[in-house]
Protein backbone atom coordinates (compact mmCIF):
# COMPACT_ATOMS: atom_id res chain seq x y z
CA UNK A 1 0.00 0.00 0.00
CA UNK A 2 2.74 2.46 0.96
CA UNK A 3 4.74 1.80 -2.16
CA UNK A 4 1.72 2.24 -4.36
CA UNK A 5 0.72 5.46 -2.53
CA UNK A 6 4.10 7.09 -3.10
CA UNK A 7 4.39 5.88 -6.68
CA UNK A 8 0.93 7.21 -7.46
CA UNK A 9 2.22 10.59 -6.32
CA UNK A 10 5.09 10.27 -8.78
CA UNK A 11 7.84 9.67 -6.22
CA UNK A 12 10.68 7.19 -6.51
CA UNK A 13 10.57 4.54 -3.83
CA UNK A 14 13.63 2.84 -2.40
CA UNK A 15 12.84 -0.23 -0.33
CA UNK A 16 15.50 -1.82 1.84
CA UNK A 17 16.44 -5.37 0.78
CA UNK A 18 15.43 -8.58 2.50
CA UNK A 19 16.84 -8.86 5.98
CA UNK A 20 20.34 -10.30 6.07
CA UNK A 21 22.89 -10.82 8.79
CA UNK A 22 24.46 -7.40 8.21
CA UNK A 23 21.12 -5.61 8.58
CA UNK A 24 20.31 -7.56 11.73
CA UNK A 25 23.73 -6.80 13.23
CA UNK A 26 23.37 -3.10 12.42
CA UNK A 27 19.96 -3.15 14.06
CA UNK A 28 21.28 -4.85 17.18
CA UNK A 29 23.97 -2.20 17.47
CA UNK A 30 21.46 0.59 17.08
CA UNK A 31 19.02 -0.79 19.69
CA UNK A 32 19.10 -1.31 23.41
CA UNK A 33 19.51 -4.97 24.31
CA UNK A 34 16.00 -5.51 25.69
CA UNK A 35 14.24 -4.29 22.58
CA UNK A 36 12.44 -7.09 20.74
CA UNK A 37 14.19 -8.81 17.86
CA UNK A 38 11.65 -7.51 15.35
CA UNK A 39 12.31 -3.93 16.39
CA UNK A 40 16.05 -4.54 16.09
CA UNK A 41 15.54 -5.79 12.54
CA UNK A 42 13.51 -2.64 11.83
CA UNK A 43 16.29 -0.40 13.10
CA UNK A 44 18.73 -2.25 10.84
CA UNK A 45 16.57 -1.48 7.83
CA UNK A 46 16.28 2.19 8.77
CA UNK A 47 20.04 2.42 9.06
CA UNK A 48 20.47 0.77 5.67
CA UNK A 49 18.24 3.42 4.09
CA UNK A 50 20.12 6.38 5.54
CA UNK A 51 21.95 8.16 2.75
CA UNK A 52 20.21 6.17 0.04
CA UNK A 53 17.07 8.32 -0.18
CA UNK A 54 15.79 11.80 0.63
CA UNK A 55 13.24 10.79 3.23
CA UNK A 56 12.65 7.65 5.25
CA UNK A 57 9.04 6.76 5.89
CA UNK A 58 8.46 5.64 9.48
CA UNK A 59 4.75 5.28 10.25
CA UNK A 60 3.24 5.43 13.71
CA UNK A 61 0.19 3.19 13.89
CA UNK A 62 -1.41 3.10 17.32
CA UNK A 63 -5.16 2.77 17.70
CA UNK A 64 -7.80 1.62 15.22
CA UNK A 65 -11.49 2.48 14.79
CA UNK A 66 -12.91 0.33 17.53
CA UNK A 67 -10.27 1.20 20.11
CA UNK A 68 -8.13 -1.85 19.37
CA UNK A 69 -4.46 -1.09 19.80
CA UNK A 70 -1.29 -2.19 18.12
CA UNK A 71 1.67 -3.32 20.18
CA UNK A 72 3.30 -0.58 22.24
CA UNK A 73 6.41 -0.79 20.09
CA UNK A 74 4.38 0.62 17.18
CA UNK A 75 3.38 3.58 19.37
CA UNK A 76 6.95 4.56 19.99
CA UNK A 77 8.93 3.48 16.94
CA UNK A 78 8.79 6.91 15.25
CA UNK A 79 10.22 8.66 18.30
CA UNK A 80 12.75 5.88 18.85
CA UNK A 81 14.04 6.21 15.28
CA UNK A 82 14.23 9.99 15.75
CA UNK A 83 16.26 9.64 18.92
CA UNK A 84 18.53 6.92 17.54
CA UNK A 85 19.26 8.43 14.12
CA UNK A 86 19.03 12.21 14.56
CA UNK A 87 20.77 12.63 11.18
CA UNK A 88 17.98 10.84 9.27
CA UNK A 89 15.26 12.84 7.55
CA UNK A 90 11.93 11.23 8.26
CA UNK A 91 8.40 11.47 7.01
CA UNK A 92 5.61 9.69 8.81
CA UNK A 93 1.92 9.09 9.27
CA UNK A 94 0.12 8.88 12.58
CA UNK A 95 -2.90 6.62 12.80
CA UNK A 96 -4.62 7.03 16.15
CA UNK A 97 -8.40 6.97 16.00
CA UNK A 98 -8.67 7.84 19.66
CA UNK A 99 -6.97 11.10 18.89
CA UNK A 100 -9.10 11.69 15.78
CA UNK A 101 -6.26 10.68 13.46
CA UNK A 102 -7.97 8.37 10.98
CA UNK A 103 -6.11 6.55 8.24
CA UNK A 104 -7.33 8.95 5.58
CA UNK A 105 -6.38 11.98 7.71
CA UNK A 106 -2.92 10.57 8.14
CA UNK A 107 -2.36 10.15 4.40
CA UNK A 108 -3.84 13.55 3.66
CA UNK A 109 -1.30 15.17 5.98
CA UNK A 110 1.51 13.13 4.47
CA UNK A 111 0.45 14.19 0.96
CA UNK A 112 0.41 17.85 2.07
CA UNK A 113 3.86 17.51 3.52
CA UNK A 114 5.11 16.08 0.23
CA UNK A 115 3.62 19.03 -1.61
CA UNK A 116 1.06 17.05 -3.63
CA UNK A 117 -2.33 18.41 -4.67
CA UNK A 118 -5.25 17.30 -2.43
CA UNK A 119 -7.11 15.68 -5.33
CA UNK A 120 -4.03 13.70 -6.33
CA UNK A 121 -3.51 12.60 -2.72
CA UNK A 122 -7.08 11.39 -2.50
CA UNK A 123 -6.75 9.43 -5.71
CA UNK A 124 -3.42 7.95 -4.65
CA UNK A 125 -4.85 6.91 -1.30
CA UNK A 126 -7.88 5.31 -2.95
CA UNK A 127 -5.78 3.40 -5.44
CA UNK A 128 -3.29 2.31 -2.82
CA UNK A 129 -6.04 1.03 -0.54
CA UNK A 130 -7.64 -0.81 -3.46
CA UNK A 131 -4.31 -2.37 -4.43
CA UNK A 132 -3.84 -3.60 -0.89
CA UNK A 133 -7.36 -4.99 -0.77
CA UNK A 134 -6.84 -6.88 -4.03
CA UNK A 135 -3.59 -8.32 -2.84
CA UNK A 136 -5.26 -9.50 0.37
CA UNK A 137 -8.09 -11.14 -1.55
CA UNK A 138 -5.62 -12.99 -3.74
CA UNK A 139 -3.79 -14.32 -0.71
CA UNK A 140 -7.05 -15.36 0.89
CA UNK A 141 -8.16 -17.23 -2.23
CA UNK A 142 -4.81 -19.03 -2.47
CA UNK A 143 -4.94 -20.04 1.17
CA UNK A 144 -8.51 -21.21 0.81
CA UNK A 145 -7.48 -23.46 -2.08
CA UNK A 146 -4.73 -24.93 0.07
CA UNK A 147 -7.33 -26.23 2.54
CA UNK A 148 -8.23 -28.95 0.05
CA UNK A 149 -4.66 -30.24 0.05
CA UNK A 150 -4.16 -33.84 1.26
CA UNK A 151 -0.89 -32.83 2.95
CA UNK A 152 -0.51 -32.17 6.67
CA UNK A 153 -1.83 -28.70 7.29
CA UNK A 154 0.09 -26.52 9.73
CA UNK A 155 -1.17 -23.09 10.76
CA UNK A 156 1.57 -20.61 11.51
CA UNK A 157 0.49 -18.09 14.12
CA UNK A 158 2.94 -15.24 13.82
CA UNK A 159 3.02 -11.54 13.13
CA UNK A 160 3.49 -10.89 9.40
CA UNK A 161 6.61 -8.81 10.01
CA UNK A 162 8.19 -11.87 11.58
CA UNK A 163 7.11 -14.83 9.50
CA UNK A 164 7.64 -13.18 6.09
CA UNK A 165 11.05 -11.90 7.13
CA UNK A 166 13.78 -13.52 5.07
CA UNK A 167 16.06 -14.08 8.03
CA UNK A 168 13.65 -14.55 10.95
CA UNK A 169 10.64 -16.40 9.58
CA UNK A 170 11.43 -17.89 6.19
CA UNK A 171 13.72 -20.66 7.49
CA UNK A 172 10.72 -22.01 9.38
CA UNK A 173 8.49 -21.99 6.33
CA UNK A 174 11.24 -23.62 4.24
CA UNK A 175 11.71 -26.33 6.86
CA UNK A 176 8.00 -27.07 6.89
CA UNK A 177 7.74 -27.18 3.13
CA UNK A 178 10.76 -29.47 2.84
CA UNK A 179 8.91 -31.85 5.16
CA UNK A 180 5.99 -31.78 2.75
CA UNK A 181 3.57 -29.87 4.97
CA UNK A 182 1.04 -27.35 3.69
CA UNK A 183 1.67 -23.99 5.40
CA UNK A 184 -1.25 -21.76 6.28
CA UNK A 185 -0.80 -18.28 7.76
CA UNK A 186 -2.99 -16.91 10.52
CA UNK A 187 -2.61 -13.33 9.32
CA UNK A 188 -4.25 -13.91 5.95
CA UNK A 189 -8.01 -14.27 6.64
CA UNK A 190 -10.02 -11.06 6.78
CA UNK A 191 -9.01 -9.06 9.85
CA UNK A 192 -12.37 -7.62 10.93
CA UNK A 193 -14.00 -11.01 10.72
CA UNK A 194 -11.18 -12.71 12.66
CA UNK A 195 -11.18 -10.08 15.42
CA UNK A 196 -14.83 -10.93 15.96
CA UNK A 197 -14.06 -14.65 16.12
CA UNK A 198 -11.21 -14.15 18.61
CA UNK A 199 -13.82 -13.38 21.28
CA UNK A 200 -14.53 -17.06 21.78
CA UNK A 201 -10.98 -17.41 23.10
CA UNK A 202 -10.51 -14.07 24.81
CA UNK A 203 -13.11 -11.56 25.98
CA UNK A 204 -10.75 -8.74 26.74
CA UNK A 205 -7.87 -8.92 24.29
CA UNK A 206 -7.25 -5.47 22.83
CA UNK A 207 -4.29 -5.91 20.49
CA UNK A 208 -5.63 -5.80 16.96
CA UNK A 209 -2.91 -7.96 15.44
CA UNK A 210 -3.13 -10.61 18.14
CA UNK A 211 -6.91 -10.67 17.85
CA UNK A 212 -6.51 -11.26 14.15
CA UNK A 213 -4.21 -14.25 14.73
CA UNK A 214 -6.33 -15.63 17.56
CA UNK A 215 -9.48 -15.39 15.47
CA UNK A 216 -7.80 -17.38 12.71
CA UNK A 217 -7.16 -20.24 15.12
CA UNK A 218 -10.89 -20.38 15.82
CA UNK A 219 -11.60 -20.03 12.10
CA UNK A 220 -9.35 -22.94 11.09
CA UNK A 221 -9.67 -25.08 14.21
CA UNK A 222 -11.39 -28.02 12.49
CA UNK A 223 -9.39 -27.81 9.26
CA UNK A 224 -5.78 -28.03 10.44
CA UNK A 225 -3.49 -30.70 11.89
CA UNK A 226 -1.27 -28.52 14.03
CA UNK A 227 -0.33 -24.99 15.08
CA UNK A 228 3.11 -23.42 15.23
CA UNK A 229 3.39 -20.22 17.22
CA UNK A 230 6.36 -18.19 16.23
CA UNK A 231 7.32 -15.13 18.21
CA UNK A 232 10.35 -12.94 18.72
CA UNK A 233 11.92 -12.46 22.12
CA UNK A 234 10.61 -10.76 24.26
CA UNK A 235 7.34 -9.84 22.54
CA UNK A 236 4.95 -8.30 25.09
CA UNK A 237 1.53 -9.11 23.59
CA UNK A 238 2.57 -12.61 22.49
CA UNK A 239 3.91 -13.47 25.94
CA UNK A 240 0.36 -13.36 27.30
CA UNK A 241 -1.74 -14.13 24.22
CA UNK A 242 0.04 -17.39 23.43
CA UNK A 243 -0.18 -18.51 27.05
CA UNK A 244 -3.93 -17.96 27.07
CA UNK A 245 -4.49 -19.70 23.72
CA UNK A 246 -2.42 -22.70 24.74
CA UNK A 247 -4.48 -23.03 27.89
CA UNK A 248 -7.82 -22.71 26.11
CA UNK A 249 -7.37 -24.63 22.86
CA UNK A 250 -6.98 -28.24 23.90
CA UNK A 251 -7.46 -30.54 20.94
CA UNK A 252 -4.89 -29.33 18.41
CA UNK A 253 -1.17 -30.14 18.82
CA UNK A 254 0.88 -26.97 19.04
CA UNK A 255 4.42 -25.82 19.54
CA UNK A 256 5.98 -22.47 20.24
CA UNK A 257 9.15 -21.24 18.54
CA UNK A 258 10.75 -18.21 20.16
CA UNK A 259 13.26 -16.52 17.91
CA UNK A 260 15.93 -14.13 19.10
CA UNK A 261 18.87 -12.55 17.39
CA UNK A 262 21.28 -15.46 17.84
CA UNK A 263 19.32 -18.54 16.93
CA UNK A 264 20.63 -21.67 15.27
CA UNK A 265 18.84 -22.94 12.21
CA UNK A 266 19.78 -26.56 12.95
CA UNK A 267 18.03 -26.57 16.31
CA UNK A 268 14.99 -25.02 14.72
CA UNK A 269 14.93 -27.68 12.04
CA UNK A 270 15.07 -30.51 14.58
CA UNK A 271 12.16 -29.11 16.53
CA UNK A 272 10.01 -28.64 13.45
CA UNK A 273 10.86 -32.15 12.25
CA UNK A 274 9.82 -33.78 15.51
CA UNK A 275 6.65 -31.72 15.59
CA UNK A 276 5.73 -32.92 12.09
CA UNK A 277 6.48 -36.51 13.17
CA UNK A 278 3.99 -36.13 15.99
CA UNK A 279 1.34 -34.74 13.65
CA UNK A 280 1.87 -37.62 11.23
CA UNK A 281 1.64 -40.21 13.97
CA UNK A 282 -1.54 -38.62 15.23
CA UNK A 283 -3.06 -38.60 11.76
CA UNK A 284 -2.20 -42.28 11.31
CA UNK A 285 -3.84 -43.35 14.55
CA UNK A 286 -6.98 -41.34 13.98
CA UNK A 287 -7.53 -42.97 10.57
Amino acid at each position, binding site marked *: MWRSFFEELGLNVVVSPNTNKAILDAGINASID*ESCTSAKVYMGHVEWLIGKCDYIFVPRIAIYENGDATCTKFY*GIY*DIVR*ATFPQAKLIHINIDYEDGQTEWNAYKKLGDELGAKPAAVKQAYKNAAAALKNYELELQAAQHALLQSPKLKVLIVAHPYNIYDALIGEPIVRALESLNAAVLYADIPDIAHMCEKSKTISRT*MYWRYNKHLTGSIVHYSDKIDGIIFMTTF*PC*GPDSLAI*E*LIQRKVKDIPMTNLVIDSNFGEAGLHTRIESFIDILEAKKETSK
Partner: protein
Amino acid sequence: MKHKISFPHMGKYSVPIKKLIEELVGDSGEVMLAPSITKKTIELGSKHSPEFVCIPFKYNLGNFIEALENGATVLFHTSGDCRMGFYNEVQEQILRDLGYEFEMCILETNSRNRSLRDFYGMFKRLNPRLTYARTIKAILLAVRIVFAMDKIERYVRQNIGFETQAGTLEEIENTFLRDVAKAKSIFTVGKLYKQAMRKLESVPLNKPQNALKIGVVGELYVLMEPFSNYFIEKELAKFGIEVTRFIDVSYLLFSPKHKIPYLVKESEGYATYDIGADGTDSVAKCVYFAKNGYDGIIHLKPFGCTPEVNSIPICQKISEDLGIPILYFSFDSQTSETGVKTRLEAFYDMIEMKRETVK
Protein backbone atom coordinates in the same frame (compact mmCIF):
# COMPACT_ATOMS: atom_id res chain seq x y z
CA MET B 1 -21.61 -17.19 53.03
CA LYS B 2 -19.34 -14.24 53.56
CA HIS B 3 -17.04 -13.28 50.72
CA LYS B 4 -13.36 -13.46 51.51
CA ILE B 5 -11.78 -10.76 49.42
CA SER B 6 -8.15 -10.30 48.50
CA PHE B 7 -6.00 -8.40 46.01
CA PRO B 8 -2.33 -8.15 44.98
CA HIS B 9 -0.01 -5.89 46.94
CA MET B 10 1.52 -2.72 45.67
CA GLY B 11 3.59 -1.00 48.32
CA LYS B 12 1.57 0.68 51.03
CA TYR B 13 -1.53 1.01 48.90
CA SER B 14 -3.12 -2.01 50.51
CA VAL B 15 -4.35 0.46 53.18
CA PRO B 16 -6.70 2.52 50.97
CA ILE B 17 -7.70 -0.45 48.79
CA LYS B 18 -8.65 -2.49 51.84
CA LYS B 19 -10.57 0.49 53.18
CA LEU B 20 -12.41 0.99 49.91
CA ILE B 21 -13.48 -2.63 49.62
CA GLU B 22 -14.43 -2.90 53.29
CA GLU B 23 -16.63 0.17 53.11
CA LEU B 24 -18.35 -1.16 50.00
CA VAL B 25 -19.00 -4.75 50.90
CA GLY B 26 -20.02 -4.03 54.49
CA ASP B 27 -21.16 -7.13 56.35
CA SER B 28 -21.33 -9.36 53.29
CA GLY B 29 -17.60 -9.83 53.11
CA GLU B 30 -14.27 -9.38 54.76
CA VAL B 31 -10.98 -8.31 53.33
CA MET B 32 -8.05 -10.59 53.98
CA LEU B 33 -4.74 -9.14 52.84
CA ALA B 34 -2.54 -11.40 50.78
CA PRO B 35 0.50 -12.43 52.83
CA SER B 36 3.32 -9.87 52.51
CA ILE B 37 5.57 -10.39 49.51
CA THR B 38 8.49 -12.69 50.22
CA LYS B 39 10.91 -14.71 48.11
CA LYS B 40 8.35 -17.48 48.19
CA THR B 41 5.71 -15.23 46.58
CA ILE B 42 7.88 -14.53 43.60
CA GLU B 43 8.94 -18.17 43.30
CA LEU B 44 5.33 -19.30 43.23
CA GLY B 45 4.43 -16.59 40.74
CA SER B 46 7.35 -17.34 38.42
CA LYS B 47 6.64 -21.04 38.45
CA HIS B 48 3.18 -20.63 36.97
CA SER B 49 3.80 -17.61 34.73
CA PRO B 50 4.51 -17.49 30.99
CA GLU B 51 8.19 -17.53 30.16
CA PHE B 52 8.94 -13.93 29.34
CA VAL B 53 6.11 -11.99 30.84
CA CYS B 54 7.11 -8.90 32.85
CA ILE B 55 7.83 -9.20 36.55
CA PRO B 56 4.68 -7.51 37.99
CA PHE B 57 2.67 -10.39 36.51
CA LYS B 58 4.71 -12.84 38.55
CA TYR B 59 4.32 -10.87 41.77
CA ASN B 60 0.56 -10.50 41.25
CA LEU B 61 0.14 -14.19 40.50
CA GLY B 62 2.20 -15.12 43.57
CA ASN B 63 0.00 -12.85 45.72
CA PHE B 64 -3.13 -14.45 44.30
CA ILE B 65 -1.94 -18.01 44.92
CA GLU B 66 -0.98 -17.21 48.50
CA ALA B 67 -4.31 -15.47 49.08
CA LEU B 68 -6.27 -18.38 47.61
CA GLU B 69 -4.33 -20.81 49.77
CA ASN B 70 -5.53 -18.80 52.76
CA GLY B 71 -9.12 -19.21 51.64
CA ALA B 72 -9.88 -16.13 49.54
CA THR B 73 -13.00 -16.45 47.37
CA VAL B 74 -13.04 -13.11 45.57
CA LEU B 75 -9.98 -11.59 43.92
CA PHE B 76 -9.64 -7.98 42.86
CA HIS B 77 -7.41 -6.91 40.05
CA THR B 78 -6.84 -3.73 38.14
CA SER B 79 -6.36 -2.75 34.53
CA GLY B 80 -3.57 -0.90 32.78
CA ASP B 81 -2.46 0.73 29.58
CA CYS B 82 0.23 -1.74 28.60
CA ARG B 83 0.01 -5.51 28.64
CA MET B 84 -1.07 -5.15 32.26
CA GLY B 85 -4.58 -4.64 30.91
CA PHE B 86 -4.52 -8.24 29.76
CA TYR B 87 -3.05 -9.66 32.99
CA ASN B 88 -6.37 -10.47 34.61
CA GLU B 89 -7.79 -12.74 31.92
CA VAL B 90 -4.59 -14.79 31.64
CA GLN B 91 -4.09 -14.96 35.39
CA GLU B 92 -7.67 -16.01 35.91
CA GLN B 93 -7.16 -18.86 33.44
CA ILE B 94 -3.88 -19.93 35.07
CA LEU B 95 -5.46 -19.99 38.53
CA ARG B 96 -8.48 -21.95 37.28
CA ASP B 97 -6.15 -24.45 35.60
CA LEU B 98 -4.46 -24.83 38.98
CA GLY B 99 -7.84 -25.86 40.35
CA TYR B 100 -8.81 -22.80 42.40
CA GLU B 101 -12.38 -21.58 42.57
CA PHE B 102 -12.97 -17.88 42.97
CA GLU B 103 -14.56 -14.80 41.47
CA MET B 104 -12.43 -12.18 39.73
CA CYS B 105 -13.39 -8.48 39.85
CA ILE B 106 -11.66 -5.67 38.01
CA LEU B 107 -11.09 -2.22 39.49
CA GLU B 108 -10.93 -0.23 36.28
CA THR B 109 -8.24 2.46 36.42
CA ASN B 110 -8.27 3.49 32.81
CA SER B 111 -10.02 6.85 32.58
CA ARG B 112 -11.51 5.82 29.21
CA ASN B 113 -13.42 2.91 30.70
CA ARG B 114 -13.94 4.13 34.26
CA SER B 115 -17.62 4.32 35.03
CA LEU B 116 -19.33 4.75 38.35
CA ARG B 117 -22.21 2.57 37.21
CA ASP B 118 -20.07 -0.45 36.40
CA PHE B 119 -18.17 0.04 39.63
CA TYR B 120 -21.39 0.21 41.61
CA GLY B 121 -22.83 -2.78 39.78
CA MET B 122 -19.77 -4.89 40.55
CA PHE B 123 -19.97 -4.22 44.29
CA LYS B 124 -23.74 -4.48 44.34
CA ARG B 125 -23.34 -8.13 43.36
CA LEU B 126 -21.08 -8.68 46.35
CA ASN B 127 -23.19 -6.63 48.71
CA PRO B 128 -26.90 -6.41 47.81
CA ARG B 129 -27.51 -3.69 50.43
CA LEU B 130 -25.08 -1.25 48.78
CA THR B 131 -26.41 2.20 47.81
CA TYR B 132 -25.03 4.84 45.47
CA ALA B 133 -24.55 7.25 48.37
CA ARG B 134 -22.45 4.74 50.21
CA THR B 135 -20.41 3.99 47.07
CA ILE B 136 -19.56 7.63 46.59
CA LYS B 137 -18.69 8.05 50.24
CA ALA B 138 -16.36 5.05 50.11
CA ILE B 139 -14.63 6.27 46.97
CA LEU B 140 -14.11 9.74 48.44
CA LEU B 141 -12.70 8.27 51.61
CA ALA B 142 -10.25 6.02 49.76
CA VAL B 143 -9.18 8.80 47.43
CA ARG B 144 -8.65 11.15 50.37
CA ILE B 145 -6.41 8.56 52.01
CA VAL B 146 -4.43 8.07 48.80
CA PHE B 147 -3.82 11.81 48.45
CA ALA B 148 -2.80 12.17 52.08
CA MET B 149 -0.43 9.20 52.09
CA ASP B 150 1.15 10.21 48.80
CA LYS B 151 1.84 13.71 50.12
CA ILE B 152 3.34 12.31 53.29
CA GLU B 153 5.42 9.84 51.37
CA ARG B 154 6.69 12.55 49.05
CA TYR B 155 7.88 14.56 52.05
CA VAL B 156 9.51 11.50 53.58
CA ARG B 157 11.23 10.57 50.31
CA GLN B 158 12.76 14.01 49.91
CA ASN B 159 14.03 14.22 53.45
CA ILE B 160 14.74 10.74 54.68
CA GLY B 161 18.37 10.99 53.64
CA PHE B 162 18.95 13.78 56.13
CA GLU B 163 17.39 12.57 59.36
CA THR B 164 19.54 13.06 62.41
CA GLN B 165 18.07 9.94 63.90
CA ALA B 166 17.42 7.19 61.37
CA GLY B 167 13.87 5.87 61.20
CA THR B 168 12.03 8.84 62.73
CA LEU B 169 10.25 9.93 59.57
CA GLU B 170 9.31 6.43 58.59
CA GLU B 171 7.85 5.76 62.00
CA ILE B 172 5.59 8.80 61.76
CA GLU B 173 4.47 7.64 58.34
CA ASN B 174 3.71 4.15 59.60
CA THR B 175 1.75 5.49 62.57
CA PHE B 176 -0.26 7.61 60.17
CA LEU B 177 -1.02 4.58 57.98
CA ARG B 178 -2.06 2.56 61.02
CA ASP B 179 -4.41 5.27 62.28
CA VAL B 180 -5.85 6.14 58.91
CA ALA B 181 -6.81 2.50 58.36
CA LYS B 182 -9.36 2.99 61.15
CA ALA B 183 -10.66 6.36 59.93
CA LYS B 184 -14.38 6.52 59.25
CA SER B 185 -14.69 9.84 57.43
CA ILE B 186 -12.68 12.14 55.24
CA PHE B 187 -12.53 14.66 58.08
CA THR B 188 -10.70 12.22 60.31
CA VAL B 189 -8.27 11.54 57.47
CA GLY B 190 -7.70 15.26 57.08
CA LYS B 191 -7.04 15.67 60.78
CA LEU B 192 -4.64 12.73 60.90
CA TYR B 193 -2.85 14.07 57.85
CA LYS B 194 -2.34 17.48 59.41
CA GLN B 195 -1.06 15.92 62.62
CA ALA B 196 1.36 13.70 60.74
CA MET B 197 2.65 16.56 58.58
CA ARG B 198 3.21 18.73 61.67
CA LYS B 199 5.15 15.93 63.30
CA LEU B 200 7.17 15.31 60.15
CA GLU B 201 8.07 18.97 59.78
CA SER B 202 9.23 19.20 63.37
CA VAL B 203 11.73 16.36 62.93
CA PRO B 204 15.22 17.93 62.93
CA LEU B 205 17.00 17.50 59.61
CA ASN B 206 20.62 17.86 58.77
CA LYS B 207 20.20 18.98 55.21
CA PRO B 208 23.00 20.80 53.42
CA GLN B 209 22.07 23.71 51.15
CA ASN B 210 23.18 21.97 48.00
CA ALA B 211 22.34 18.33 48.62
CA LEU B 212 22.65 15.99 45.67
CA LYS B 213 19.30 15.61 43.93
CA ILE B 214 18.11 12.57 42.03
CA GLY B 215 14.92 12.01 40.08
CA VAL B 216 13.36 8.58 39.78
CA VAL B 217 11.37 7.59 36.70
CA GLY B 218 10.10 4.38 35.14
CA GLU B 219 7.42 1.75 35.26
CA LEU B 220 4.78 2.21 37.92
CA TYR B 221 4.76 -1.18 39.62
CA VAL B 222 8.49 -1.50 40.24
CA LEU B 223 8.50 2.14 41.34
CA MET B 224 5.74 1.67 43.88
CA GLU B 225 6.37 -1.85 45.17
CA PRO B 226 9.60 -1.55 47.15
CA PHE B 227 10.09 -5.30 47.32
CA SER B 228 10.32 -5.48 43.55
CA ASN B 229 12.97 -2.76 43.34
CA TYR B 230 15.05 -4.09 46.21
CA PHE B 231 14.10 -1.11 48.38
CA ILE B 232 16.12 1.13 46.13
CA GLU B 233 14.79 4.36 47.62
CA LYS B 234 15.94 3.28 51.07
CA GLU B 235 19.38 2.57 49.68
CA LEU B 236 19.47 6.01 48.10
CA ALA B 237 18.53 7.59 51.40
CA LYS B 238 21.65 6.16 52.99
CA PHE B 239 23.77 8.28 50.66
CA GLY B 240 22.10 11.49 51.81
CA ILE B 241 20.43 12.25 48.50
CA GLU B 242 17.21 14.14 47.94
CA VAL B 243 14.95 11.88 45.91
CA THR B 244 12.05 13.08 43.74
CA ARG B 245 9.56 10.82 42.10
CA PHE B 246 6.38 11.94 40.38
CA ILE B 247 4.69 8.61 39.91
CA ASP B 248 2.36 7.57 42.70
CA VAL B 249 -1.28 6.57 42.65
CA SER B 250 -2.75 10.05 43.08
CA TYR B 251 -0.53 11.32 40.26
CA LEU B 252 -1.37 8.44 37.92
CA LEU B 253 -5.10 8.51 38.47
CA PHE B 254 -5.92 12.13 38.96
CA SER B 255 -3.17 14.50 37.92
CA PRO B 256 -3.86 16.62 34.84
CA LYS B 257 -0.10 16.64 34.41
CA HIS B 258 -0.16 12.95 33.59
CA LYS B 259 -2.22 13.52 30.44
CA ILE B 260 -0.52 12.88 27.12
CA PRO B 261 -0.76 16.40 25.60
CA TYR B 262 0.87 17.86 28.70
CA LEU B 263 3.60 15.24 28.74
CA VAL B 264 4.35 15.63 25.05
CA LYS B 265 4.71 19.37 25.60
CA GLU B 266 6.90 18.84 28.64
CA SER B 267 9.16 16.49 26.69
CA GLU B 268 10.12 19.42 24.43
CA GLY B 269 10.15 17.54 21.18
CA TYR B 270 11.80 14.37 22.43
CA ALA B 271 8.46 12.59 22.19
CA THR B 272 6.14 13.58 19.36
CA TYR B 273 3.48 11.09 20.39
CA ASP B 274 2.42 8.87 23.21
CA ILE B 275 5.05 6.11 23.20
CA GLY B 276 2.95 3.81 25.35
CA ALA B 277 1.76 3.72 28.96
CA ASP B 278 4.22 5.53 31.25
CA GLY B 279 7.05 5.64 28.74
CA THR B 280 5.99 9.13 27.73
CA ASP B 281 6.04 10.14 31.38
CA SER B 282 9.60 8.89 31.78
CA VAL B 283 10.73 10.91 28.78
CA ALA B 284 8.95 14.07 29.93
CA LYS B 285 10.28 13.79 33.46
CA CYS B 286 13.84 13.17 32.27
CA VAL B 287 13.63 16.51 30.48
CA TYR B 288 12.14 18.10 33.60
CA PHE B 289 14.87 16.75 35.88
CA ALA B 290 17.60 17.74 33.45
CA LYS B 291 16.30 21.31 33.24
CA ASN B 292 15.72 21.74 36.95
CA GLY B 293 19.20 21.22 38.25
CA TYR B 294 19.04 17.58 39.24
CA ASP B 295 22.31 15.68 39.43
CA GLY B 296 21.11 12.41 38.04
CA ILE B 297 18.17 10.22 37.10
CA ILE B 298 17.43 6.62 37.93
CA HIS B 299 15.22 4.73 35.52
CA LEU B 300 13.51 1.55 36.78
CA LYS B 301 11.58 -1.03 34.82
CA PRO B 302 10.70 -4.69 34.75
CA PHE B 303 12.71 -6.72 32.25
CA GLY B 304 11.12 -6.47 28.80
CA CYS B 305 8.63 -3.71 29.72
CA THR B 306 7.82 -2.45 26.21
CA PRO B 307 6.80 1.14 27.02
CA GLU B 308 9.91 1.70 29.10
CA VAL B 309 12.15 -0.06 26.58
CA ASN B 310 10.69 2.43 24.10
CA SER B 311 11.57 5.30 26.38
CA ILE B 312 15.21 4.30 26.92
CA PRO B 313 16.69 5.26 23.51
CA ILE B 314 14.93 8.61 23.88
CA CYS B 315 16.17 9.06 27.46
CA GLN B 316 19.68 8.23 26.27
CA LYS B 317 19.42 11.03 23.74
CA ILE B 318 18.24 13.43 26.46
CA SER B 319 21.10 12.34 28.68
CA GLU B 320 23.55 13.07 25.87
CA ASP B 321 22.03 16.38 24.79
CA LEU B 322 21.37 17.86 28.21
CA GLY B 323 24.31 16.27 30.02
CA ILE B 324 22.49 14.47 32.81
CA PRO B 325 23.60 10.98 33.89
CA ILE B 326 20.94 8.28 33.89
CA LEU B 327 21.25 4.89 35.55
CA TYR B 328 19.01 2.14 34.16
CA PHE B 329 17.77 -0.81 36.19
CA SER B 330 15.85 -3.73 34.79
CA PHE B 331 14.25 -6.03 37.34
CA ASP B 332 13.41 -9.68 37.02
CA SER B 333 13.05 -12.53 39.47
CA GLN B 334 16.77 -13.22 39.21
CA THR B 335 18.12 -9.74 39.88
CA SER B 336 20.85 -9.76 42.52
CA GLU B 337 20.52 -7.37 45.40
CA THR B 338 24.26 -6.92 45.71
CA GLY B 339 24.47 -5.99 42.05
CA VAL B 340 21.87 -3.30 42.55
CA LYS B 341 23.76 -1.88 45.56
CA THR B 342 27.11 -1.85 43.76
CA ARG B 343 25.71 -0.06 40.75
CA LEU B 344 23.98 2.51 42.96
CA GLU B 345 27.20 3.17 44.82
CA ALA B 346 29.15 3.63 41.61
CA PHE B 347 26.46 5.97 40.30
CA TYR B 348 26.55 7.98 43.51
CA ASP B 349 30.33 8.33 43.31
CA MET B 350 30.03 9.39 39.71
CA ILE B 351 27.48 12.15 40.24
CA GLU B 352 29.35 13.37 43.28
CA MET B 353 32.55 13.63 41.26
CA LYS B 354 30.68 15.38 38.48
CA ARG B 355 29.50 17.94 41.03
CA GLU B 356 33.08 18.48 42.22
CA THR B 357 34.49 19.08 38.76
CA VAL B 358 31.76 21.50 37.83
CA LYS B 359 32.60 23.69 40.81
